[in-house]
């Protein structure tokens, strides 16, 4: 700082220049370091004859992926293999998010139960999950599944056609001969119609103060399109019953132990954190709200569902976003127990092509996109919840 008696204007100019200089130097340093690293990498790649670029994406992958939500053969390209990996990541992470939220909310409410036994038990649940690394749990769940369940030859038949063994859970599958999309459309139409009726009914009840038939009409609307579809259209399907073959259970739909262990790990881990958030969210709602609701004669279940939770959502949703983003990122631990997610597929590609930079950059980009998308979606939802609260 200038200590001489120059005018304030000069001093200001001086500071501005300094600020600009700071920034220029800073950016220059970042660019220089980046350029330096880039030069090194380029030289190293050239010296070691390592291939670069994204040409590999269109080459034949040649390896098998054990779980493929879309059709995939070893003769397909690396690009398609990556897509399969991405879909697997999305499947397991989204399922874990939904299940984790449901379980976590229940645990969070139970944590506040007046019954000390229940609340302590739930505390133990949360502490056990939060104080042990997720990766360790994944190894533990996976080992527990494959070592404690019997091999497939001695599979336990839970129900006719439902088998559980250390090779996973097998249930009968439905094979559609025709009319699959008709049925889907009918179910969707039913859900939309029932939901629409409920909204209309609630509005009318609030407007007129008269009771409007709610669930009987909803139920009819829900089932009707389905019945019509079956009556009118040609719908044929049959069950594919699992059978014990020479080695494996053939037929039916399979839930592999790798998937189950990962889903279990992610769900439990998310549920413990959700529980803590829900708990603090509920505690943030004033005692008066609960007392007022009880004074109106609402049962404690309805108080929770209609009064407390909707308000608590405003406190709950922002930290929930963090958990959802974390769950997406945690799903990358799939590699440890052999579930073919994006990272595992990328890793195999790295092994096969010898190219490391491109696959890593690619999956980092995907996770960045997923994190961003989750944040945006949750911000949008948060804005909605916040508005309703007013």
């Amino acid at each position: 700082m200038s200590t001489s008696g120059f005018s304030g204007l000069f001093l200001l100019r001086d500071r501005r220049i300094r600020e600009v200089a700071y920034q220029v130097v800073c950016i220059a340093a970042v660019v220089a370091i980046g350029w330096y690293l880039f030069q090194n990498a380029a030289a190293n790649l050239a010296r070691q004859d390592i291939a670069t670029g994204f040409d590999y994406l269109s080459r034949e992958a040649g390896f098998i992926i054990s779980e493929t939500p879309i059709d995939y053969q070893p003769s397909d390209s690396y690009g398609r293999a990556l897509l399969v990996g991405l879909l697997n990541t999305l499947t397991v992470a989204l399922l874990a998010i939904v299940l984790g939220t449901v379980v976590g909310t229940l645990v969070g409410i139970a944590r506040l139960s007046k019954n000390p036994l229940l609340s302590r038990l739930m505390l133990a649940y949360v502490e056990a999950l939060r104080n042990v690394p997720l990766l360790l749990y994944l190894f533990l769940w996976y080992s527990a599944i494959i070592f404690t369940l019997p091999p497939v030859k001695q599979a336990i038949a839970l129900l006719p056609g439902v088998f559980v063994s250390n090779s996973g859970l097998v249930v009968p599958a439905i094979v559609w001969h025709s009319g699959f999309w008709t049925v889907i459309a009918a179910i969707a139409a039913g859900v939309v119609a029932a939901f629409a009726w409920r909204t209309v009914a609630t509005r009318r009840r609030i407007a007129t103060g008269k009771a409007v038939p709610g669930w009987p009409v909803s139920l009819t609307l829900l089932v009707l399109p389905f019945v019509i579809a079956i009556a009118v259209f040609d719908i044929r399907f049959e069950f594919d019953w699992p059978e014990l073959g020479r080695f494996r259970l053939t037929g039916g739909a399979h839930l592999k132990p790798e998937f189950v262990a990962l889903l279990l790990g992610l769900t439990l881990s998310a549920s413990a954190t959700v529980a803590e958030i829900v708990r603090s969210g509920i505690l943030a709602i004033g005692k008066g709200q609960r007392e007022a609701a009880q004074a109106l004669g609402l049962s404690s279940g309805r108080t929770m569902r209609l009064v407390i939770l909707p308000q608590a959502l405003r406190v709950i949703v922002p930290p929930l976003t963090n958990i959802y983003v974390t769950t997406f990122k945690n799903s990358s631990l799939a590699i440890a127990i052999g579930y073919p997610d994006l990272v595992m597929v990328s890793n195999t590609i790295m092994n096969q092509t010898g190219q490391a930079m491109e696959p890593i950059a690619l999956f980092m980009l995907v996770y960045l996109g997923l994190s961003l998308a989750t944040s945006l979606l949750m911000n949008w939802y948060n804005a909605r919840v916040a508005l309703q609260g007013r």
Partner: protein
Amino acid sequence: MSTMANSGEEQIAIRAPAQSGGLGASAYFGTPANTIVTLLCLALLALAAKVAVSWLVINAVFDGTPEDCKASVGACWPYLTAKLRYMLFGIYPFEEQWRPLTATALFILAITISCIPRLWSRWLLLGWVVLLPVLYLLMAGGAFGLAEVPTSQWGGLPLSFMLTFVGLVCALPLGILLALARLSNLPAIRILAVTFIELVRGVPLISILFMASVMLPLFMPDGVTIDKLLRAQVAIILFAAAYIAEIVRAGLQALPRGQTEAAQALGLHYWQYTFLVIIPQALKTVIPPLVSLFIGFFQDTTLVTIVGLLDFLNTVRTALRDPNWQGIAVLEGYLFAAAVYFVFSALMGAYSRFLEKHFRVGYD
């Protein structure tokens, strides 16, 4: 990667009032529904106790050979005693294992002492400055008659502690600077900081570890190599810095503007008021969430297993490869590791709650 989730809500959770009332029998058997809940909980507890006791004690093998364990359906305690040293210290030379043992003991002792707020002083800091080189010397050797042990042979619990502690100590200043940069008035600096923080927070730790272990060597000039351990350590530091930055930022933003204005009015320079006035106050408020973050990072260091470092989880896993014990004591190994992680994490969690209370009392 569980870190993010750990950081925020811990302190909210603590604010909850203790369970009100509930001392009498009515808390357990007040209403029919409550009675059912109590009975269900009791049944669950009884079942868990029965399984635990029969596995850990009744059916367990306390003394014997792998064959005894194979024949038994209970826990296999001889496995733990046979493999304890390997699980704790990995492939560190066997005769030299007193060194990591001493180092770990000293470290835990020093941490315990440092946990007492009354003892926080310059002397404590000085103690650490002296202790760290001593610990490094103990581990690495090469002087005072200690045989040299390369980092490639470090492993087990000391390695996990080191990755966590060094990671956080180095990440803290970096995180503070990033937080300041993010709140800066200068757009270029702000954008750079935001980019770095959001980039790192948006990707899984495993991808950063992959990058460090596979890609980093490519970015080094010809002939310069960084060893595997240091590469992972750098990855953890950068990762931790981004998360610390966000916590520190929250602390900075929570400070009343008056602090800055008063300091400026006194004629203090930016660096002076930032480091003498703002940062000390901000740090004080964020200590409890920082400790929660540390718990998360302690657990996250297990991910180095995936890039092939012998941290504690990985030594527990590779111990299972012993031909004599193959497939016999898998659950025992993992449960032992879980117990160790649980004890350390739960202690840190309890400490975080203590600090929370301590500081609140201080301010009220």
